[in-house]
């Protein structure tokens, strides 16, 4: 019980800790509290009644048999309260422990907000801890690498500018053997929408771009993709605590859409990216809501099906279950549209329990999967609860309209031998829609 018994070696954390002195920690912490924190943090710390009601909210807590050091309040107590009590006068080792808890044992999934009567935002408190660790340079190596990539290339995966356009043209080529007049329109000013994806799509899930293009082509959409940086909607700097880079990435994204004079941004099936564009980046940049309308794929597919622009030739043989990704359900309320789409394209749904706003997180989100191999087991063992939940449905297919969730659920399905298939909405729509223009 407690972080001392489960420390994990990570090159980034070790290097960061080695460069710290207690003075530097105290100075940075005090400046952070005085500068960036205000009434929210103070109220939360003061009014938390230590009632423990938030414990059963957290999949880590559930998966570890109620180990209190995994309860939301337990994690806050081991990090922020400890730091506040000592006014930041702690050893580098404590910062290393705080970093491991904040980056790898909380997905910022906000499920615990449904459990705390006082409305205490544990995810916010944990992100303040991450902000501190970032300022102190104590960040897990892998997530830091993605933040560096954002900083240098404005995308998450070191995709070079020409590789980006190459990948799109390659997918266009491929798709033209199925739809001879298909285009992936680059840099088309005044299009109805700009389609943005996360960097892993051009990097190693290129077929998703093909599928999206096929769907938009079939629906007769007037769309475009940018030919310049600003195309990537993912944002790991948001999770590493690097608000400055996070803001820069989001500004580029919005400005790219504005330069293309599109009416809105349609985003691929990713949750964290949606959170960054929909409600984090805009705040940092001084916009109450995002300056360009932002639509997640779930909603966009819903529109296409609702307006009859896409018709299904067949249904995916079911039954399937639905995983509700935190960032578009608790973060955007798309649970009903998601269900309408799934019911329309699949043959029968078996719901997980609990579901909708109360669904358990995939344990990959919040940057946890991006902390890389050293922490893979943390999220697999830490989400046995999800495996049980999936198993209880007894179905063969799980629909998860989010990249992060796919990453997390794949590992869980494999580890717990659930033998389930994972699908994006786009996978199924592409496979089963009517394709009048196809040869």
């Amino acid at each position, binding site marked *: 019980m407690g972080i001392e018994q489960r420390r994990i070696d990570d090159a980034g954390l070790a290097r960061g800790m080695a460069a710290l002195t207690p003075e530097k920690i105290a100075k940075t912490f005090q400046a952070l509290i005085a500068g960036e924190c*205000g*009434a*929210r943090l103070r109220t939360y710390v003061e009014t938390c009644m*230590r*009632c*423990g009601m938030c414990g059963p909210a957290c999949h880590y807590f559930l998966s570890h048999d109620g180990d209190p050091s995994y*309860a939301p309040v337990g994690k806050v107590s081991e990090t922020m309260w400890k730091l506040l009590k000592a006014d930041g006068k702690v050893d580098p080792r404590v910062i290393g422990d705080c970093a491991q808890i904040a980056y790898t044992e909380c997905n910022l999934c906000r499920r615990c*907000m449904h*459990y705390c009567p006082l409305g205490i935002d544990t995810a916010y408190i944990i992100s303040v801890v991450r902000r501190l660790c970032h300022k102190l340079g104590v960040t897990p190596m892998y997530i830091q690498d993605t933040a560096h990539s954002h900083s240098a290339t404005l995308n998450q995966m070191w995709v070079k500018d020409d590789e980006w356009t190459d990948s799109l043209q390659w997918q266009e080529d491929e798709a033209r053997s199925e739809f001879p007049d298909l285009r992936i329109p680059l840099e088309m000013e005044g299009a109805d929408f700009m389609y943005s994806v996360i960097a892993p799509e051009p990097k190693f899930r290129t077929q998703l771009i093909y599928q999206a293009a096929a769907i938009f082509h079939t629906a007769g959409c007037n769309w475009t993709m940018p030919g310049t940086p600003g195309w990537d909607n993912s944002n790991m700097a948001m999770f590493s605590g690097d608000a400055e880079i996070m803001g820069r990435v989001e500004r580029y994204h919005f400005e790219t859409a504005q330069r293309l004079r599109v009416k809105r941004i349609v985003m691929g099936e990713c949750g964290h990216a949606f959170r960054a564009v929909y409600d984090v980046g805009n705040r940092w940049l001084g916009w109450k809501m995002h300056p360009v309308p932002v639509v997640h794929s779930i909603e966009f597919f819903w529109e296409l099906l609702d307006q009859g622009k896409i018709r299904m030739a067949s249904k995916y043989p079911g039954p399937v279950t639905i995983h509700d990704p935190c960032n578009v359900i608790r973060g955007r309320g798309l649970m009903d549209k998601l269900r309408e789409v799934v019911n329309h394209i699949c043959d029968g749904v078996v719901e997980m329990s609990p579901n909708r706003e109360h669904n358990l997180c995939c344990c990959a989100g919040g940057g946890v999967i991006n902390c890389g191999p050293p922490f893979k087991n943390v999220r697999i063992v830490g989400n046995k609860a999800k495996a049980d939940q999936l198993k209880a449905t007894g179905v063969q297919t799980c629909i998860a309209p989010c990249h992060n969730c796919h990453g997390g659920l794949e590992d869980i399905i494999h580890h717990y031998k659930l033998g389930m298939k994972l699908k994006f909405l786009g996978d199924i729509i592409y496979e089963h829609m009517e394709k009048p223009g196809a040869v």
Partner: protein
Amino acid sequence: MRELYEFAVGPMAWAAFGVFLIGSVIRLISMYSLARKKDGPFLSYMSWRFGLRSILNWLIPFNAQGWKENPLVCVTTFVFHLGLILVPLFLLGHVVLWDQYWGFSYPTLPEQAADIFTIAVIVACLVFAWRRATNRTLRFVTTGQDWLVLLIAFLPFLTGFLASQHVGPPLVMTTLHVLSGELMLMAIPFTRLSHMIFGLFSRAYMGSEFGGVRHAKDW
């Protein structure tokens, strides 16, 4: 003893109400100005509609997910807070004091109901204490202050109940009761009991974010 009693219901009562009211107002104002200064962008999401919607939904027992999955805490918390509000405000013995010192009165709780609520609060405190002592999560996060505030809330009810049942010397019991009640009032703005002042706001803020931005419920 007589003098102590006179002191407790006289100057000390003034002081206690003063500290409670002025302290609460000052804390609210200073927290609000801190929020304006530092959390401005977040304040702008505050919405009456969604804030109240969230508060109301949390005020229904077993409605929110947190209540559903913590049934014992749910029942205890509702009983405790109900008693905590009803007994001090509507007990005959208290209303008589209002009348005596300020010259106004209002309907009171039937004596039996007051007794039941008092006992319920005492039992609720014991349940809280039992959980704090035995529940793994609570043991992990409990600090001295958590025990202190529980004791502060417990004492006025215990002494009040004993006094009403004529246990112990009446004057001593009554004096202890008055003093512990005053201690609780004065502790509200400066301890965790301040969740009485701030809790509605943190709940309303969460409700506003969830309702207005995230289009999802937060209960």
